[in-house]
């Protein structure tokens, strides 16, 4: 077992000889022990014994952020990635950078941090060189580095550790020279993941694995209806069960606190609770009606090009269609959980969180203490997908720790997780398009959806438009002279939140399916049609052509097989996918997915591919199964039996091709998701002749 104190919490396999450590930052302990350590910024530190520590400021939830960030720092500092210590940063404004907060999302970890981290590594390296130059009485320009050492013009050599004390006394340069990309050992190469070893040995510490002296475990009973509230509860029978410590009311519901999870869960089954009903308690039919009504009666313009009305009026041929999207759950493999210890006017939090700053600020507000008295440590995350940007589970732990005056870990069940999510919004889209010959002249697109941003970022909702509702639609890249996009925001009483690729996931399904409809209406091959309308969009075209070519688009397929294609830009990256389906004995089967991505400059091509594979499987799961039914204002979900995920035997062959590019870096965590559903729907249309305009798709 790893020793664990409140200050030093090891996340990774620190005890493994020769292995890479991943530890939470030890804020003061290390500095006190070693006052001469060289730590020119919040990311790099070199101790006098030569040990280098790189601090990572993004949550590792599978997307490989730690591997990429460490590579950037290690390459600019010129150290051996296998020999450095990696530390996950606690919440601190030093790590806000371009985000303005500490958090992980929007596929930004690499693209928003690359310059700052390269600068941090380069500054440290320049100072170590300057220290060596001063020691040897030579010019800095005459020195160079070689993996943890500075080499001088006469063959001198000093290790970074030997230079640390002197380097620490030198000024931090404003514009340190960057290393030549030709000298990089990691960037641009398929560097192994830095978290491989702890994750194949069971040593990686997730939030649910946090252990503290005197730690209690809690489960929470929550109102089944969204917006429901606690009326009263009877815990007499539950309190008598062994291991039960307290049963208390908190904002979220009733917390059952016990020595362990099983005792808490067993006791929770014996608690009887009366809930006050929710004000708005819709079901699926009511939701469909509310969305349709919103499209009939309201709408705010998100984009206006030309005169869509006139173009539709005068068109020789028009197409109309409605598309429907269901609510989707995140279903992270690690159920929601967090650990908090409120004591002596302070609060310490250990959480698998994507939103460190939000967690710290909201915990401080809940407790009525300054944020300086709240510490947020980030563990590994067993999946995030946007769900862990929310802080509901963190605040439950904080409230329960305060209530029972002990450290408390709150652990959700899978049933809790699926029933109390912030879902991807359900939406209704209504489209009309005009064709003149085989060329579209108008695209009218109206979307009704609940708004995520009204809750999470109300300042960004302008003139009735939530940009997440229309993203990927208002950027319609096709050369169509008349475009109108409208947004109707509807309150349905169901909590909604960021779900991997946010609005893009559903909107790409609608746009790229309808483009396919237009291509067929125009009597043109879907690739030829898109190519013509994307003539000015070089990066869209680049991935479209690459995916089509590698998938053998246009080449004959055996009987009973068909292909579909889609292309979409999101988070600064361009992705096209070709899905190949095969008629099976009972149902069509997805055989193969060919993916092309242009994400600009990238750190790790293997991890770019891994994120495309991940996005494709995620999106395929959603396209085939994803649907959260709502009845009487509550999610009708259970466990994985009623919310199935794709399994190994349903996984198609996936090929990823990366477009070489020097463009600024784009994101990778999310852009693999959006094109999959429409490419699949388009393939099913090619196979069956039936156009499916509602998710999830039926494989019949």
């Amino acid at each position: 077992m790893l020793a664990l104190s409140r200050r030093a919490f090891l996340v990774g396999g620190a005890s493994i000889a020769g292995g890479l450590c991943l530890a939470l930052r030890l804020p003061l302990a290390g500095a006190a022990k070693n006052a001469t350590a060289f730590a020119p910024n919040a990311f790099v530190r070199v101790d006098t014994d030569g040990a280098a520590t790189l601090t990572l400021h993004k949550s590792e939830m599978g997307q490989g952020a730690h591997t990429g960030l460490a590579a950037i720092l290690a390459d600019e500092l010129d150290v051996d990635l296998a020999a450095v210590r990696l530390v996950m940063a606690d919440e601190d404004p030093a790590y806000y950078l371009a985000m303005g907060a500490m958090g992980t999302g929007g596929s930004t970890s690499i693209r928003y941090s690359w310059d700052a981290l390269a600068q941090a590594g380069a500054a440290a390296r320049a100072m170590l060189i300057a220290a060596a130059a001063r020691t040897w009485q030579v010019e800095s320009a005459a020195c160079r580095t070689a993996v943890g050492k500075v080499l001088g013009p006469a063959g001198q050599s000093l290790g970074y550790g030997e230079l640390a004390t002197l380097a620490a006394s030198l000024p931090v340069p404003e514009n340190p020279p960057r290393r030549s990309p030709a000298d990089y050992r990691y960037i641009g190469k398929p560097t192994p993941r830095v978290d491989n070893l702890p994750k194949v040995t069971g040593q990686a510490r997730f939030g649910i694995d946090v252990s503290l002296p005197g730690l209690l475990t809690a489960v929470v009973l929550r109102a089944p209806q969204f917006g429901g509230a606690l009326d009263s509860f009877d815990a007499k029978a539950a309190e008598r069960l062994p291991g039960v410590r307290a049963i208390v009311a908190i904002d979220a519901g009733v917390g059952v606190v016990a020595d362990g999870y099983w005792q808490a869960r067993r006791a929770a089954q014996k608690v009887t609770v009366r809930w006050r009903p929710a004000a708005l308690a819709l079901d699926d039919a009511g939701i469909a009606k509310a969305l349709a009504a919103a499209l009939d009666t309201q709408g705010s313009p998100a984009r206006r090009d030309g005169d869509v009305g006139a173009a539709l009026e005068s068109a020789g041929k028009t197409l109309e269609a409605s598309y429907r999207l269901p609510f989707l759950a995140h279903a992270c493999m690690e159920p929601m959980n967090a650990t908090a210890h409120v004591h002596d006017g302070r609060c310490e939090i250990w959480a698998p969180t994507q939103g460190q700053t939000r967690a710290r600020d909201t915990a401080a507000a809940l407790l009525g203490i300054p944020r300086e008295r709240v510490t947020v440590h980030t563990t590994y995350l067993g999946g995030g997908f946007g769900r862990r940007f929310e802080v509901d589970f963190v605040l439950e732990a904080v409230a329960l720790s305060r209530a029972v005056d002990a450290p408390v870990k709150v652990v959700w069940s899978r049933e809790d997780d699926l029933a109390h999510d912030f879902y991807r919004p359900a939406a209704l889209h209504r489209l009309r398009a005009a064709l003149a010959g085989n060329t579209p002249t108008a695209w009218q697109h109206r979307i009704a959806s609940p708004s995520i941003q009204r809750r999470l970022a109300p300042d960004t909702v302008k003139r009735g438009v939530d940009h997440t509702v229309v993203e990927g639609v208002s950027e319609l890249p096709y050369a169509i002279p008349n475009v109108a996009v409208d947004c109707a925001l509807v309150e349905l009483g169901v909590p909604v939140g960021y779900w991997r690729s946010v609005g893009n996931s559903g909107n790409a399904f609608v746009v790229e399916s309808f483009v396919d409809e237009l291509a067929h209406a125009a009597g043109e091959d879907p690739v030829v049609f898109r190519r013509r309308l994307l003539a000015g969009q070089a990066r869209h075209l680049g991935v479209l052509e690459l995916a089509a070519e590698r998938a053998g688009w246009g080449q004959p397929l055996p009987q009973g097989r068909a292909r579909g294609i889609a292309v979409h830009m999101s988070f600064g990256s361009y992705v096209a996918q070709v899905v190949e389906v095969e008629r099976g004995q009972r149902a069509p089967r997805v055989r193969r997915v060919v993916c092309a991505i242009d994400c600009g400059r990238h750190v790790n091509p293997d991890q770019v591919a891994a994120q495309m594979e991940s996005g494709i499987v995620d999106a395929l799961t959603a396209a085939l199964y994803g649907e959260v039914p709502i009845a009487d204002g509550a999610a009708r979900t259970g466990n994985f039996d009623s919310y199935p995920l794709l399994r190994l035997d349903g996984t198609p062959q996936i090929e990823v091709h990366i477009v070489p590019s020097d463009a600024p870096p784009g994101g990778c965590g999310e852009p693999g998701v959006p094109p999959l559903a429409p490419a699949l729907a388009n393939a099913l249309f090619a196979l069956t002749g039936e156009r499916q305009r509602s998710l999830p798709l039926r494989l019949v």
Partner: protein
Amino acid sequence: MTTLHVNGKAFELDADPDKPLLWVLREDLGLTGSKFACGVGHCLACLVHLDGQPAAACLTPLGAVGSRQVTTIEGLPADGSHPVQRAWMELNVVQCGYCQSGQIMAAVALLVRTPQPDEAAIDAALRGNLCRCGTYQRIRRAVQRAAALAREV
């Protein structure tokens, strides 16, 4: 008192025989490599071996383990030198990693049973293990790679 044999060691436990093995491992023995994700055997993030046979620790009451040897992910080499672990690292299979203990233990059990599994055998043996990051394709390849590495030993 119950005697539980885990990773070659015997533990004397004063725990409720109804308590699932998963929570005994995680909370009483501090072996947190086996994960809780569904509690009903649908995802196998908790997969351990009982006398070498794969089992869902979340569905196995402590009292039902008896004298059988429990092997968890912590029972594999801590330096990652098992062929399955080596293959997993070589192919960078893991993403969030939460399901991977169960995936790896399922793969280890498969390769004992079937040293050279074809794709269909791998799919059949590991279809019970959910992965939300979608590492499936790499899992499939890593099991084949592990089979090759095991032959080299």
